[in-house]
């Protein structure tokens, strides 16, 4: 099982729906793809939808934290939504709950950001 990402842009927000496993191996190409899209389209906010992510380790935490620092520099917001039971524990351990905005789903994220 590898990783696939369905990505779309709405206003200045990049939405990333992840399916599969986010580890050191799969994080490399995801990071490159996100970085180039964010530069190219002048992205301010980022929303990760983790509904179909079946595995994540500390490399995945590193990717999210890395994007968080980037977004924060541009006064943007990083939102993580649809956290499932398989990855909940690692997100809890990493302290991401304390620094990120967590929403139930993408609709809630859209409401939070006001990107209608």
């Amino acid at each position, binding site marked *: 099982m590898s990783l696939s990402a369905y990505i779309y842009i709405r206003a200045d927000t990049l939405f990333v729906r992840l399916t599969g496993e986010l580890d050191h191996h799969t994080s490399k190409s995801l990071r490159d793809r996100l970085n180039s899209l964010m530069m190219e389209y002048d992205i301010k906010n980022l929303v990760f939808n983790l509904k179909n992510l079946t595995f994540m*380790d500390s490399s995945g*935490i590193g990717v999210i934290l890395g994007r968080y620092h980037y977004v924060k520099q541009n006064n943007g917001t990083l939102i993580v939504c649809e956290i499932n039971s398989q990855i909940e524990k*690692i997100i809890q351990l990493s302290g991401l709950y304390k620094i990120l905005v967590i929403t139930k789903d993408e609709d809630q994220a859209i409401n939070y950001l006001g990107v209608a």
Partner: protein
Amino acid sequence: MFKRNYAEVVFDALSQNEAFARMVVSGFVMPLDPTIDELNELKTIVSEAVTNSIIHGYENKKGKVKMVMEYENEWITLTIIDYGKGIEDVNKARELFYTSKPEEERSGMGLTIMEIFSDEFYISSKIGEGTIVKVKKKLTCSCENDV
């Protein structure tokens, strides 16, 4: 019924083998009927250890990783061995959020996660010889009900 099993696998220190190692450990412990959480924790432990060997042990150069898997009843022992450069200061490496490679967006949580997800955690390392990570984890399985 007393259950005991042993397996070992040696593979190249390539990042695509992180998923392979997770699948191997999943398959190995399947007869013990672990819970989804337990399986997830075992996979995470293996993933962190193998990733460390690749990134830190071999610094993305050629090398081999050996994974030894054992169980005795509900106790699982996993040993992940590399023959890479070794860790200079193991205590420092065990500190939460410490990473020797901040430029690579490492979260510095690998060893801490392994420790939390296991019941016993050992790491020993020798400069120029490699690193051995050993974890023990007790499953809450109902082994005696199995055929």
